[in-house]
């Protein structure tokens, strides 16, 4: 999203999203489908609950000794002939990849789906360096053609209907396309086949990296990941430092729950295990392999309030069940990672001031915690972020005054009783037939779409104090 769009307040961005009929249709269909698929997958998998606990425990234990596991990973990738780079910031990560592209004389890069490269805005940096990035995941391909950004962690084009994709293909690829998913996929496949053969550089993310074997693990459904890691001369994988897992035994625990949470599949169609560059006697694979380890604010949170968010597997389950995400989609959030977990990741990567408004984009319903494969307590951290926003005095002064007054009122029963009486007097012009349909701001935000019950003619405590029958 551009800076210009971000200057629009969040509430307004959300409002526009809710007026977009195509988006509303696409969101409802897709999230409802994902919710059902996830539910079915776990219903037929009684060991799932215990595996979720185990996965969380592995993540916690790994964070406890992240330095050690990263050292092991680095040693093993290098032993296999790969190169490891460390990037503290997104800018560093971009320049590492751009330097590799320059040094190897790359003109075109094919990419597998990767949120880490979205996070560092890699495509723009490659283009500026004269390297053409080509997204090869179908959803990413669609949004690249549309010059947009992903609106969902695993389904980047979830906001588009098939009709819109057909129009996009017709316009951008200059060939007539019917709104039929199979036909559209055939068109994309034919276009991409050429690019795979031309590309010098293959860029991926990593769902996991196994420390004790130096293996980068890619979980995909379209087979494009395999093409990206095996056809070009050079393969660069970019991953957040928290993606390391100690061993293959640990990896199996995550693989057992990741696809079920994301798409309801038992396993994704492809689980690719990449171990360094092509070795002597091997027929395929890149000549060079690079692993870029990205910090970008993660390491500071190992001991910070957002630590739990470092366990995220990027499955997107919390987005699908979130009542807010389901109304507004991903773009309205305004940053790389949308949805409930996205608010936490945005705070982690951009700092708490970036989520001043987003921290409140949740009813705290907790559906995300139940859906999360590693049970991240997202509402708890959203409240923590709200607290930080309040403590730093980033919240509007009107709100801070209102809450200070509310606190006084709730600490003083006489003041509380007086407020009830005052409310009864003040509501008189607005109350009709036991309901209030219109009030001035700020209460008008409620009454625009909903009635409000009036303050009772006698509160319960007033009745208790005066009605002997009730007390008896």
């Amino acid at each position, binding site marked *: 999203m551009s800076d210009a769009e971000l200057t629009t307040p969040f*509430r307004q961005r959300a409002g526009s999203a809710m007026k977009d009929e195509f988006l509303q249709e696409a969101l409802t269909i897709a999230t409802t489908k994902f919710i059902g698929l996830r539910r079915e997958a776990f219903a037929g998998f009684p060991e799932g609950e215990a595996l979720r606990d185990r996965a969380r425990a592995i993540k916690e234990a790994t964070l406890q000794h992240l330095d050690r596991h990263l050292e092991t990973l680095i040693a093993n990738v290098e032993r296999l002939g790969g190169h490891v780079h460390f990037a503290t910031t997104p800018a560093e990560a971009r320049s590492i990849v751009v330097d590799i592209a320059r040094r190897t004389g790359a003109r075109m890069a094919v990419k597998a789906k990767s949120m880490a490269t979205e996070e560092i805005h890699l495509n723009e940096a490659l283009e500026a360096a004269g390297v053409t990035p080509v997204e090869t995941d179908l959803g990413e391909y669609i949004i690249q053609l549309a010059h947009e950004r992903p609106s969902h962690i695993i389904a980047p084009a979830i906001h588009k209907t098939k009709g819109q994709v057909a129009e996009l293909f017709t316009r951008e690829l200059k060939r007539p396309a019917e709104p039929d998913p199979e036909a559209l996929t055939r068109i994309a496949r034919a276009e991409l086949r050429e690019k795979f053969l031309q590309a010098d550089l293959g860029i991926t993310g990593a769902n996991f990296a196994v420390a004790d074997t130096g293996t980068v693990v890619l979980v995909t459904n379209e087979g494009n990941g395999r093409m990206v890691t095996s056809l070009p001369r050079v393969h660069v994988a970019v991953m957040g430092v928290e993606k390391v897992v100690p061993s293959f035994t640990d990896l199996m625990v995550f693989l057992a729950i990741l696809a079920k949470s994301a798409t309801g599949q038992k396993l994704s169609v492809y689980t690719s295990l990449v171990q360094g560059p092509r070795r002597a006697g091997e027929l395929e694979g890149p000549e060079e392999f690079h692993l870029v380890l990205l910090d970008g604010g993660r390491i500071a949170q190992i001991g910070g309030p957002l630590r739990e968010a470092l366990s995220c597997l990027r499955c997107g389950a919390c987005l699908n069940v979130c009542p807010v995400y389901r109304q507004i989609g991903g773009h309205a959030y305004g940053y790389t990672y949308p949805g409930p977990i996205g608010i936490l990741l945005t705070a982690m990567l951009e700092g708490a001031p970036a989520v001043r408004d987003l921290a409140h984009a949740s009813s705290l319903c907790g559906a995300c915690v139940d859906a999360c494969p590693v049970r991240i307590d997202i509402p708890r951290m959203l409240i923590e972020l709200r607290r930080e926003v309040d403590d730093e005095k980033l919240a509007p002064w009107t709100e801070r005054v209102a809450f200070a007054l509310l606190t006084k009122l709730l*600490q003083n029963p006489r003041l509380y009783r007086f407020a*009830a009486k005052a409310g009864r007097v003040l509501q008189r012009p607005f109350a009709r037939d036991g309901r209030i349909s219109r009030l001035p701001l700020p209460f008008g935000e409620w009454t625009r779409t*909903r009635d409000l019950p009036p303050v009772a003619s006698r509160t319960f405590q007033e*009745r208790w104090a005066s009605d002997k029958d009730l007390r008896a």
Partner: protein
Amino acid sequence: MTARRASLMVTCLGDLFFPEVGVSIVRLLRKLGVAVDVPADQTCCGLPLFNSGYRGDAAAVARRTVALFKESEYVVVPSGSCAWMVKHEYPGLMADTAVGPEARELAARTHELSQFLVRVLGATEFTAAVPGRVTYHDSCHLLRGLHESESPRMLLGKLRGAELVPLPGADECCGFGGSFAVRLPEVSSQILAKKLANVESTGAGCLVACDAGCLMQMNGGLKRAKSRVRALHLAELLDGGR
């Protein structure tokens, strides 16, 4: 197990907007042989402050509540969210203070109404007749915070004359979320609209919930839409469906 005495924590919304719910609870408990008291000077559990990130203020309000209910044998709360606040958040809020142990004790003695009736008193048969179809909405804090989906349904299922029909998407949020409802009113209202469309699809004349926040939100939407469906608290049905 029979509780002899219980204190009603009426909650701010219950006190100000739904006093009849408190009256119903008093009558219900008394019929079951429980003596009810209402400690004076109640205000609010502090959840609105806590959820908006005003942790220190919430703790100050919570300390008052702990003192008010210090002598209570059991504390009964009509809203899942307020019960969750007391049970789940009070101990942490006051952990490092002198009232820490008292907060933990209060948490253990506090129960949401349907849980108190079914799981503490073992009372499941209510003969008050409520005619027609009723449907039940799971309040988020009661369902996911206190892990309760069975007790209210069991109570409603046994009500003579009432037919409990399942609500599609019963476990989905109604869009209330405290200050969320006025911070992002458009989003909150659209979530509500989808909830109410599901409610209307059941053909029920009565929508039941165990949280004053959800009831305020859902009733607000139903009345605005001039729906024939009424949103009522569980206690009102068990007490005769008024």
